């Protein structure tokens, strides 16, 4: 069975470490915040200007002036800081954020990522994604292994306009956890019940399969 969104978030959460400052992209990456291991503290950075983002507000706490980078109303935790967009990207571009998790349309064996535009069809804009991928030392791309038409999103070379070049080293899909090294995807873990053959079939980019590929665990 391919992973649910929640299982994907649980697996990404295993990459967290105590004391990490983390930026979670809009959409699925946001779910990672729900699976921070017991006894571990991480602090969420939101690129519109929050360090120490908290949960959604109650009706009573709701405040139009307190939103996250996904434009959702949020709260801050005790010990948060709120600042300008320039100050926020000083942190991001200066490499001070420990982990960035974001989605993508495509990733390739060179560590290139495409996530902001499908020419002629869809232009979301890059928001802060280009800044995040250019600067972060530690990035996990979190996406489905194939698109809804069954086309692989792990390629030899991205076909869409890039968000960043040579910056991705870790990919978590609904089928596998892979790392990118020396121009290839290395299959590190497979989703429970997913065969190596299925992953090979759904990976267009050069894939290296070690002798033993363990099943993923979540805690």
């Amino acid at each position: 069975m391919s992973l649910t969104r929640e299982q994907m978030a649980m697996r990404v959460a295993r990459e967290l470490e105590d004391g990490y400052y983390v930026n979670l992209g809009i959409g699925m990456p946001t779910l990672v915040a729900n699976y921070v291991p017991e006894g571990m503290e991480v602090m969420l950075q939101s690129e519109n200007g929050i360090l120490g983002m908290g949960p959604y507000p109650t009706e009573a706490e709701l405040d139009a002036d307190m939103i996250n980078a996904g434009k959702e109303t949020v709260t801050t935790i005790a010990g948060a800081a709120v600042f300008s967009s320039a100050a926020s990207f000083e942190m991001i571009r200066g490499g001070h954020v420990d982990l960035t998790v974001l989605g993508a349309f495509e990733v390739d064996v060179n560590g290139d990522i495409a996530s902001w535009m499908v020419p002629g069809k869809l232009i979301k804009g890059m928001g802060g994604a280009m800044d995040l991928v250019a600067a972060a030392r530690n990035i996990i791309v979190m996406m489905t292994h194939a698109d809804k038409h069954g086309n692989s999103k792990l390629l030899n070379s991205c076909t869409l306009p890039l968000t960043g070049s040579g910056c991705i080293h870790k990919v978590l899909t609904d089928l596998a956890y892979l790392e990118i090294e020396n121009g290839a995807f290395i299959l590190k873990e497979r989703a429970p019940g997913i065969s190596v053959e299925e992953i090979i079939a759904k990976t267009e980019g050069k894939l290296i399969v070690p002798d033993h590929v363990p099943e993923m665990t979540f805690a």
Partner: protein
Amino acid sequence: MAGFDKVVHSYEEALAGLTDGMSMAVGGFGLCGIPENLIAQVKKMGTRDLTVFSNNCGVDGFGLGLLLQDKQISRIYASYVGENKEFERQMLEGELEVILTPQGTLAEKMRAGGAGIPAFYTATGYGTPIAEGKETREFNGRHYVLEEAINADFSLVKAWKADRYGNAIYRHTAQNFNPMAATCGKICVMEVEEIVEPGELDPAQIQTPGIYVNRLIQGTFEKRIEKRTVRQG
């Protein structure tokens, strides 16, 4: 108006001098912290052929989206288009020139414009379409793109409180692009929720010093929420 009193008493006065073909740096992130009454005044004035520097372009029918409706904007530098159908339509059909700009680069370009820095290098966008036609350069083994400053004719910003001298503070994440936008326009127009007397704000806590602010006006704000997300309390 004498000395350092920046207060004006009408939105007409606030935006006097803004004419067709000019450029505006506009604060706000999504609909948060946008100078909503100043934007509404630009709509009322019908100023056309505007160049806008702003992270987003509002939504259909609110914020900068109002100016898209009437095709008052010819060109916009923004990082994000999503959730604005008219914006996407005008862009895809070529009615509107959109220079998509990474969010951090946009913030830094505005700051640079205000700070007398004509250009800076950044890793953001290297190897992507954003770098096309721009100088790139290696420092210590990494590649960077040269990005130039933004300078605008007008700055339209929204703060929480300001004293009459224009010393301003922002509320929560409504700060966002406002402090940088305030610095990079020839004429900075700021609207606030409350104007206080000089001395009421702590000097060490001022986020936009009055030297940047030319005109200050007190307004009332709808503060529309784009995505209302709540939990059970």
